[in-house]
């Protein structure tokens, strides 16, 4: 089986799905930025860029690959298990499921589909968000590369938006960081699709498992804070 990587006709659906205002709960999550700010590791546009680069090639790549594989038709429940195995932090696993459930709600309202219904029924407390994103993409008539782009972009746009709020960072600087990352986003999305193609022919071990130990440890610290702005 092969994966089509050319742009599908309904590319505009990708804009709806990847819109920061898509009501799937992302606005309340900082992608680890709040914890990194508190640890003094994220403090300006330069450190934001370094943070985003690291996140993109770890959590972002994994999310993009899971999303691409789900969009390509790999069993979402196996992908959900693969996502668990790639997420040692229980706080991050819980966050991913919570966001997956929220995305599922938005997805079913926007692109009703039996595939979404089936996943919702199998994982009523939520599947990992990238898996839901991938299934949503296919319900919206999008392809694996679109799903990968959406997941990869989300991996960096979340922290960038949060950094603007947390650090009163100049929003032009933060957005310029995202613009500079664009070629890397394309590369990561393509890498994700290539691995999804392998996973379709073999198993989920073919998907990347790039980890970011600091994101994981910081997420557990953050989850224990009594006072915080962002849910993660």
């Amino acid at each position, binding site marked *: 089986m092969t994966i089509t990587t050319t742009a599908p006709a309904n590319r505009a659906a990708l804009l709806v799905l990847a819109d920061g*205002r898509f*009501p*799937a*709960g*992302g*606005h*309340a*999550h*900082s992608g680890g930025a709040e914890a990194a700010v508190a640890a003094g590791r994220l403090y300006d546009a330069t450190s934001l860029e370094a943070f985003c680069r690291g996140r993109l090639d770890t959590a972002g790549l994994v999310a993009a690959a899971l999303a691409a594989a789900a969009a390509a038709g790999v069993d979402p429940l196996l992908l959900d298990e693969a996502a668990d195995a790639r997420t040692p932090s229980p706080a991050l696993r819980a966050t991913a499921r*919570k966001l997956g*459930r*929220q995305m599922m*709600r*938005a997805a079913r309202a926007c692109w009703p589909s039996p595939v979404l219904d089936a996943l919702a029924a199998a994982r009523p407390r939520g599947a990992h968000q990238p898996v839901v994103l991938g299934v949503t993409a296919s319900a919206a008539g999008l392809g694996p590369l679109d799903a990968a782009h959406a997941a990869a972009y989300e991996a960096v746009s979340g922290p960038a938006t*949060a950094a603007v*709020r*947390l650090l009163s960072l100049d929003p032009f600087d933060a957005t310029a960081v995202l613009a500079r990352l664009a070629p890397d986003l394309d590369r990561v999305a393509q890498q994700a699709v290539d691995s999804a193609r392998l996973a379709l022919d073999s198993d989920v071990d073919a998907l990347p498992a790039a980890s970011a130990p600091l994101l994981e440890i910081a997420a557990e610290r953050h989850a224990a804070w*009594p*006072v*915080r*702005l*962002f*849910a993660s």
Partner: protein
Amino acid sequence: MHLDHPETYPQRYSHPSPATALSGKHPAPTSSSAPTVRPDGTRRALRIGLGGPVGSGKTATVAAICRQLRDELSIAVVTNDIYTREDAEFLLRNAVLPAERITAVETGACPHTAIRDDISANLEAVEDLEETVGPLDLVLVESGGDNLTATFSKGLVDAQIFVIDVAGGDKIPRKGGPGVSTADLLVVNKTDLAPLVGADLGVMARDARTQRGELPVAFTSLTEPDGIAPVIGWVRERLAGWTAAAA
């Protein structure tokens, strides 16, 4: 836009013309677009949102409602603090409701987003409460303190209360904004402080009427015994309407 949705909820107030609705002067009351039945077919709880500026008395109002009604109704609360889980903890500390009936939702520094633009986390919290503590009659959703433009989405609540206080000055109703002019109930709280801050309740009542037409306004002082009474009366009316619609 709510004008695009035909609404069947029983209303005491007539629909405004599109022009006045857009100006926000004489609005249609909230009526949720969220499904009104649970997965098992029974009618879900009435959902009431409480919004308003920081410190106006939203949590105090929630606490007072719970104390008054908890013996006759099954109630749960969702809080949306802008910064902390303070509101949830206040309610817990004061033993207003048992812990399992209170859920806190984080809002990522944007309280209005969580109650209006992206309500998914709040919906999840409400549904989880319905699922874990059994059938509920009333769910109160307290927004994080915000500005005068913050209102609840119809996808989240069936009715909304906007709480302001006299300490903010008697100009607030005159300023209007979606909260003051469109909420199903405007609560002007801390009337006990009016003499101290030189606020004229008569002026506030008049301005509120100009902004809100026939929509109700309640003046409360929660430091006084039974100061919550006017709000309780309104809540009971909404509950009666909600139950009647089910029949």
